[in-house]
């Protein structure tokens, strides 16, 4: 995400950085490039204008043109300014009411229903809340069924009784009170911001529910209209925040910058995949650094802590030290890695790794090969003869050559570990 923008800004700023002293004309040229990049990233025209003006003001005010490292200082100013636009500090959900109602609103196809499921999972698992979902989208065919299926998958109840969206929402609130749920997440039908009737309906729903959070769900790929959309929803509903979805593609997400600038409402979460756990808290500073190619290591470590079993990681280290590392441990490592999501997504967060392509399927094949072995074979791969290898290849849908390649790699890995033994192990972040 944002990687294309990062790339372009980087090339512009590197050019600036290479030069010794900058003139005001150099600065203008650099900023002109930044302007183009931001416009191509779908940042709204007016927001871009303000951004460039602010950066120039600061650059001139800081008298960086006379300094020895003007380029670097511009990078810092651009970065700080991006953080500022993206909302300064991170904004959490305010769920102080009981039950706390979260109202999800937005255009058709922005991803509200999926987000309802993701939020429910997040609140239940990370904040130990009892969550009730309300299916108040009576417009789109099977929208209720979709939320029901998501709820069933997660094991949370879904309230869907009522002939109108208002009835559903109010019934759900009563149910939440009666059965003492902590949070009620209300999914609503997608609507155009200019649809008078449906916008009034939302206003009334908001009036009756008095939600703790009214969140606008917006597609990260939205163009210049993001501003009008966010503005209109905000005027009608007094939003408490924005959720950006589909950020796992190549959208440069300029809409995010625009909406926050224009409405002043913070972005609270971002959707980064199709699975229900693909939800991240939005961090303006990290995002800005990511835009500038500084990577997002912090998110990566947090994710690792949430998904990797610390005990298993420790055992693994001990095994390496005892040299009792087997193919079973190898498979366990692959599974742990895969639990953290697609490898490409992990690499995106590491500076300089954004462009590396990884064949995800190679890992799947390795896992399949190990799965096709007997426990005995996994512990003592030396017993593998031609016959056994053929069976394994057949069982895993691979070739004997691939089985051989895996065994060779495993051998090499073991040798490497032997050499490492005795040396101090680098602190790995999972172990805490």
């Amino acid at each position: 995400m944002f990687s294309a923008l990062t790339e372009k800004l980087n090339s512009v700023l590197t050019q600036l950085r290479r030069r010794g002293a900058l003139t005001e004309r150099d600065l203008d040229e650099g900023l002109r490039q930044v302007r183009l990049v931001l416009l191509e990233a779908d940042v709204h025209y007016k927001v871009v204008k303000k951004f460039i003006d602010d950066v120039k003001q600061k650059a001139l005010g800081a008298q960086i043109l006379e300094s020895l490292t003007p380029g670097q200082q511009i990078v810092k100013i651009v970065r700080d300014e991006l953080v500022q636009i993206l909302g300064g500090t991170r904004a959490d959900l305010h769920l102080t009411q009981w039950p706390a109602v979260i109202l999800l609103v937005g255009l058709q196809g922005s991803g509200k229903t999926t987000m309802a499921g993701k939020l429910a999972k997040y609140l239940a698992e990370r904040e130990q809340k009892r969550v009730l979902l309300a299916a108040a989208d009576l417009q789109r065919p099977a929208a209720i069924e979709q939320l029901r299926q998501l709820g069933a998958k997660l094991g949370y109840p879904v309230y869907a009784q009522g002939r109108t969206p208002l009835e559903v929402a109010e019934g759900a609130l009563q149910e939440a009170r009666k059965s003492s749920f902590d949070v009620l997440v209300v999914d609503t039908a997608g609507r155009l911001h200019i649809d008078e009737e449906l916008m009034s309906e939302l206003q009334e729903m908001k009036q009756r529910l008095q939600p703790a959070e009214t969140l606008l769900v917006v597609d990260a790929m939205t163009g210049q209209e993001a501003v009008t959309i966010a503005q209109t929803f905000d005027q009608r509903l007094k939003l408490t925040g924005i959720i950006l979805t589909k950020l796992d593609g190549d959208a440069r997400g300029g809409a995010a910058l625009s909406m926050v600038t224009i409405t002043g409402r913070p972005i609270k979460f971002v959707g980064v995949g199709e699975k229900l756990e693909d939800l991240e808290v939005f961090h303006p500073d990290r995002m800005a650094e990511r835009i500038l190619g500084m990577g997002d290591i912090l998110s990566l470590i947090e994710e690792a802590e949430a998904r990797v079993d610390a005990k298993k990681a420790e055992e693994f280290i001990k095994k390496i030290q005892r040299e009792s590392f087997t193919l079973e441990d190898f498979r366990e490592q692959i599974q742990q890695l895969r639990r953290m999501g697609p490898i490409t997504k992990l690499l995106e967060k590491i500076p300089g790794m954004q462009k590396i392509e990884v064949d995800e399927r190679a890992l799947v094949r390795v896992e399949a090969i190990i799965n096709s072995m007997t426990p005995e074979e996994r512990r003592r791969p030396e017993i593998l003869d031609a016959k056994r290898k053929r069976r394994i290849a057949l069982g895993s849908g691979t070739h004997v050559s691939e089985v051989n390649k895996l065994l060779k790699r495993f051998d090499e890995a073991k040798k490497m570990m032997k050499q490492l033994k005795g040396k101090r192990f680098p602190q790995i972040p999972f172990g805490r």
Partner: protein
Amino acid sequence: MSWLQRLKDGLKKTKEQLVGQLAQVLQPGRRLDDALLAQLEEILITADVGVEATTEIVQALKARAAARGVQDSSAVMELLKEILKERLRPAEGALHLRSDGQPTVFLILGVNGSGKTTTIAKLAQHLKDDFGKRKIIFAAGDTFRAAAVEQLGIWAERVGAQLVHHKTGSDPSAVAFEAVERALREGADALFIDTAGRLHTKHNLMEELKKINRVVEKRLGRAMDERLLILDGTTGQNAISQAKLFHEAVSVTGIVVTKLDGTAKGGSILQIASALKLPIKLIGVGERADDLREFKADEFVEALL
């Protein structure tokens, strides 16, 4: 109400905004100078036309105004329309419907939430009402998203189409294959293969699309008649990346732009038309089935400006 009238109504919000802006800029008596051009540039960029296409359009406008000695801003509007129409006309393209008794086969593609399922329903209704295609089959190829099958099923019932579906999580190619078999066996007029929404950057999912395409082509013994990419009209510059990557995967035959009944202007189609040379086959300007219609450059520009 005529089709043109409905198009105009659909694009009304878009137009009101744009015309308001243009009227401000193009006041009678005002000279065509750099400040005016800069303002036109702003308007085009905020219509999602993109920096590159905008620059080209403004350059063309400037050159043409100079060549024809246009000084007054009131003539600028006509010039602008002229240029936009010229750029969009090559992108017109009618749907390819078969008349040899074989089923017309549509593959419907797009990112999540672009409006694939709704487009299938509208298009099927359109084929029924206006082309006398009676026997229509929907293949529920979105086997990933929760209740996607049910959603298409409800539309099938409303439109009067048959539904071929497997359970969630199954191989979409298998669904498509069975649907093709059935369409051939039962002599269907049209077959719509729905697919799960996918971001164009996901390698594995794009491979899955290629597989669906291969499997269907093999069984049909020919290419599918239409592989339509559904683009959300509110999408910005990412639309170009979507068009490019979907086209690389399954060689898209046309674009359908949805949700143009809001305030979004869908300006990205200007770049898709000129850079990718992909035809814009249909645009959606409202909720009703007949709000999805053939794309006509002149009408589109007239309705817009």
